[in-house]
């Protein structure tokens, strides 16, 4: 755990401004970069279609990014999945057993989506990339700790929850293998909370709100936000089952873990809802033929 401790604290009262700017910079570094690269790629494509080939562009871009990343400030780990080795073996196996059926369901669902809507592959990439970016954005929250959005809502709405189970698992695997964030032994549990519970809750709420006559954008927002929240409620439940309170049992332990995760997560859930609505707005502003082939837009009108 020493690795996760910040290396320089005692700055003293005079350094408040520097402290705040420091945290602002760290939290938004990735977000700034995100906007920056989106811009570059849009411009790049516009140049492609206008006929001017930019062959050295990739090289230049990757060079620039490397410099950017290496000069970027150090950052302590902010995270929220169950850490490697922190679930007893039997619980680890139990959650793998709960998770794997959904994963295989997801593989079949993905194969079907690709077969039936080959043009929609582009949006599948978009949904996966969205989840990939969002789970790297560690945001500060009102409790004084940090956590990250999951990005599961968007893909769950576009392709259905099982497809997102697969994409979410890939994100989790990447973070477990290369970032020591989450873990291989806890992948089943983390997969169940983030890549199963999240997408299914998001999908369920979207259709519930739409059936109740709610506004489409409100439904997108609520789906993404509640999908995010549900991930952490499930995580708290998983930890409570594995580590019940000595006196209060599972329920007391659940409240304790939920206090840690879910409260931190509320503002982040709202953030994720907003981000998802922004991407949604951008999607429906470009109603290409491929977008209309997506299952959701054959049921839903494109509301602008």
């Amino acid at each position, binding site marked *: 755990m020493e*690795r*996760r401790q*910040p290396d320089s*604290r005692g700055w003293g009262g005079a350094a*408040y401004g520097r402290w705040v700017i420091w945290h*602002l910079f760290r939290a*938004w570094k990735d977000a700034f*970069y995100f906007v920056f690269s*989106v*811009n*570059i*790629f*849009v411009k790049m*494509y*516009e140049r*492609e279609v206008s006929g001017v080939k930019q062959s050295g562009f990739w090289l230049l871009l990757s060079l620039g990014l490397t410099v950017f*990343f*290496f000069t970027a*400030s*150090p950052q302590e*780990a*902010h*995270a*929220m999945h*169950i*850490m490697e*080795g922190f679930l*007893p*073996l039997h619980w680890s196996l139990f959650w793998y057993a709960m998770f794997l059926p959904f994963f295989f369901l997801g593989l079949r669902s993905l194969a079907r989506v690709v077969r039936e809507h080959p043009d929609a592959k*582009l949006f599948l990439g*978009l949904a996966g*990339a*969205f989840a*990939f*970016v969002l789970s*790297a954005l*560690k945001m*500060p929250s009102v409790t*004084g700790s940090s*956590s990250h959005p999951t990005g599961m809502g968007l893909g769950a709405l576009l392709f259905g929850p099982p497809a997102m189970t697969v994409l979410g698992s890939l994100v989790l695997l990447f*973070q477990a293998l*290369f970032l020591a964030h989450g873990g*291989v032994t806890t992948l089943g549990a983390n997969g169940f909370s983030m890549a199963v519970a999240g997408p299914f809750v998001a999908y369920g709420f979207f259709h519930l709100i739409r059936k109740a006559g709610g506004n489409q954008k409100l439904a997108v927002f609520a789906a993404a936000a509640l999908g995010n929240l549900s991930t952490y409620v499930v995580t708290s439940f998983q930890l409570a089952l594995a*580590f019940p309170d000595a006196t209060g049992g599972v329920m007391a*332990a659940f409240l*304790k*873990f939920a206090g*840690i995760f879910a409260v931190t*997560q509320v*503002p982040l859930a709202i*953030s994720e809802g*907003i981000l998802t*609505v*922004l991407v949604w*707005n951008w999607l429906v*502003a*470009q109603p*290409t033929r*491929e977008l209309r082939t997506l299952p959701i837009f054959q049921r839903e009108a494109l509301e*602008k």
Partner: protein
Amino acid sequence: MKRNGWKTNAALVGLLVALVAGPLWLIKSKDFSGADAQATEAISQMAPDYRPWFEPLFAPPGSEVESFLFALQAGIGAAVIGYIAGLLRGRMERERTRGGSDQ
């Protein structure tokens, strides 16, 4: 037709920034450590005898490398999104110049 929602979007972005920046201004005594580190602490209180039985296969050596890897993850994702954004925009323009071949 295309740009009439920009005010809503701008408001949403503003809200988003406020949500992230707000805690930084309001809370000054905390170090914004990860919620999972706090959960780990809670575990050690509730089950003091528990020892993690598995270590991460690979842990980034130091916060610099970890930060790099997190930024890389965001970067890869952002690159894909950016590519698709450009592609969609190009297709949209093409559909439009062809006189809106569908609908």
